[in-house]
């Protein structure tokens, strides 16, 4: 199909709510007005790793304006959750409110519900938690060493375990070691990315409103309404038919609102108090408590021939999930499948491992799993070009996958467009390529 036949692709499409965005009339969750609304503030862990010996809420309960205080003892249903449990991912490892231990600095311990945000904050400061501080671990490779502090019995070695007892998401394709022995060059390096906060303009939050019919309406800015609804139902031990989640207007997300964060506890607070309750993250909470993109450590070893062909690639990746699983096993598997990159390499071995550390749990952000991989691989491609004295554009064109090639994770390439994309980029950048490269096509490997 030619571009001229396309009616939507290539055409700007007006956002449905653009007209009210420019007048300020778009209703975000926080713009919903309900009478007699209470405010929830969270008492959070001061330590990255500590045993909880006792939680004393008595002074907070008698603090002015306080209606109630919730701890793990008030949870009617599940005390542990994972958003993907419904898709078979498990075990559910994350407490709604901490009970035996805290595993990261900022973890939720007790929720105060009061008439005003200021009164809730004042009472949060009056909660006394007795801790026994434990050694913490913050580095992915330290965390999986023998003798490292263990976060939870769910993960005895501080790493996720994939089905069939695999410690890593894995690809085994061809014979990497044999190909390394035959390669003209070995190019080896390691790459580290940092956690990144999505920093949406609007912080995470919701308002839960008890209705006369026994249902609870939750106005939320989550990017994952169905996950939040399911998890909340499980934690409250309520049928989903009793919960009405209203969302769809999100003041920026970028993955940072995929977590189940404010909804379950706010819904429980509304149920307990019989009044509407709002829980809005401060900017500080958004930065330090809401999940970031994971930090990834990627080791890459490539076997390369003088003519530019990459004949073997071995990758070992450690994903820093932080203290709990959330969506990491999914991201890590996606990372694994991506790691050969958009290149056809006949021998590939990848191990990508989800590691638990005493850091803020990480989660979604635009292309999570893939971005860190692409960063590592494309810097590696430039290093290969430098090592063998080849133009980096030509190196990529030689190795780019072609239609019908088998990828390392046993998926045949369909609709290949890598070669054409590189050539189009070269033209836009004014990059002069030799004619045999300009004649290359994703449909075959003849030219070049």
């Amino acid at each position, binding site marked *: 199909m030619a571009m001229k036949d396309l009616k939507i692709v290539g055409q700007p499409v007006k956002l449905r709510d653009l007209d009210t965005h*420019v007048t*300020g009339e778009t209703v975000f969750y*926080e713009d919903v007005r309900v009478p007699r609304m209470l405010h929830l503030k969270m008492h959070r862990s001061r330590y990255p790793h500590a045993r909880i010996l006792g939680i004393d809420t008595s002074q907070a309960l008698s603090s002015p304006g306080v209606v109630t205080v919730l701890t793990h003892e008030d949870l009617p249903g599940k005390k542990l959750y994972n958003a993907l449990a419904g898709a078979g991912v498990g075990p559910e490892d994350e407490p709604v409110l901490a009970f035996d231990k805290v595993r990261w600095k900022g973890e939720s311990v007790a929720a105060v519900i009061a008439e005003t945000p200021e009164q809730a904050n004042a009472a949060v400061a009056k909660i006394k938690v007795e801790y026994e501080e434990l050694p913490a671990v913050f580095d992915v490779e330290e965390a999986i060493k023998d003798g490292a502090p263990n976060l939870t019995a769910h993960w005895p070695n501080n790493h996720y375990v994939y089905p069939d007892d695999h410690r890593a998401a894995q690809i085994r394709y061809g014979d990497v070691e044999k190909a390394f022995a035959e390669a003209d060059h070995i190019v080896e390096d390691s790459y580290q990315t940092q956690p990144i906060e999505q920093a949406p303009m609007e912080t995470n939050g919701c308002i839960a409103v008890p209705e006369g019919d026994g249902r609870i309406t939750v106005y939320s800015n989550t990017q994952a309404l169905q996950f939040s609804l399911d998890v909340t139902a499980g934690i409250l031990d309520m049928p989903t038919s009793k919960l009405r989640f209203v969302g769809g207007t*999100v003041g920026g997300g970028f993955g940072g609102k995929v977590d189940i964060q404010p909804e379950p506890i706010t819904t429980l607070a509304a149920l307990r108090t019989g009044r509407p309750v709002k829980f809005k993250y401060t900017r500080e909470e958004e930065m330090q408590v809401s999940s970031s993109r994971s930090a990834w450590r990627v080791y890459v070893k490539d076997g390369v021939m003088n003519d530019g062909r990459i004949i073997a690639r071995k990758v070992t990746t450690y994903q820093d999930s932080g203290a709990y699983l959330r969506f990491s096993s999914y991201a890590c598997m996606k990372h694994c499948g991506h790691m050969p990159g958009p290149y056809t390499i006949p021998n590939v071995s990848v191990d990508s491992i989800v590691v638990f550390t005493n850091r803020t749990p990480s989660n979604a952000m635009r292309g999570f799993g893939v971005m860190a991989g692409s960063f590592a691989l494309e810097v590696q491609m430039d290093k290969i070009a430098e090592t063998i004295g080849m133009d980096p554009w030509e190196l990529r064109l030689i190795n780019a996958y072609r239609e019908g090639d088998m990828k390392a994770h046993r998926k045949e390439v369909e609709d290949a467009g890598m070669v054409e994309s590189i050539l189009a980029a070269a033209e836009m950048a004014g990059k002069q390529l030799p004619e045999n490269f300009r004649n290359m096509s994703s449909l075959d490997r003849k030219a070049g």
Partner: protein
Amino acid sequence: MASGIVSIKVNGRAEEVVTGAVTTLQDVLRNNLDYTSVKDGCSQGGCGACSVIVDGELRLSCLTPVQEVDGSEVVTLEGLNLSNSITALQQKFIEKYAAQCGFCTPGMMVAITALLDRNANPSRDEIAEALAGNICRCTGYLPIIEAVESIVAEMAGIAGD
């Protein structure tokens, strides 16, 4: 500052509000008077989403104790919606796709209005400078600046775009 009663005019309407020790103009506008275009992105003067015009000057309402503006005239985007000048700017935002999630947009509208009120023909650099305190995380700043350039060109009677 102790609690008391503050009189302000908001979008042309006289209001009296009872204030506490630390009541911000943002809190009064959003929560007492229901002007929900005044967004709360950070509560610390970092994002510009709460921008309003006080006596003709651009102000961050989250950093403004309401007692400080006793007797002042305050304009929010709701007030600007009543005037013809903002309609043309809003149309340019729509044409240039200068909004995505929409959360920063009210603050942008107010900041741009304040700019054009004091300088009807700002340069590109002056536009960028005037919007330096307004954070956008979705579209990037290019379409926003282009929307302003476009309205400036139109106002100057030069062919736009």
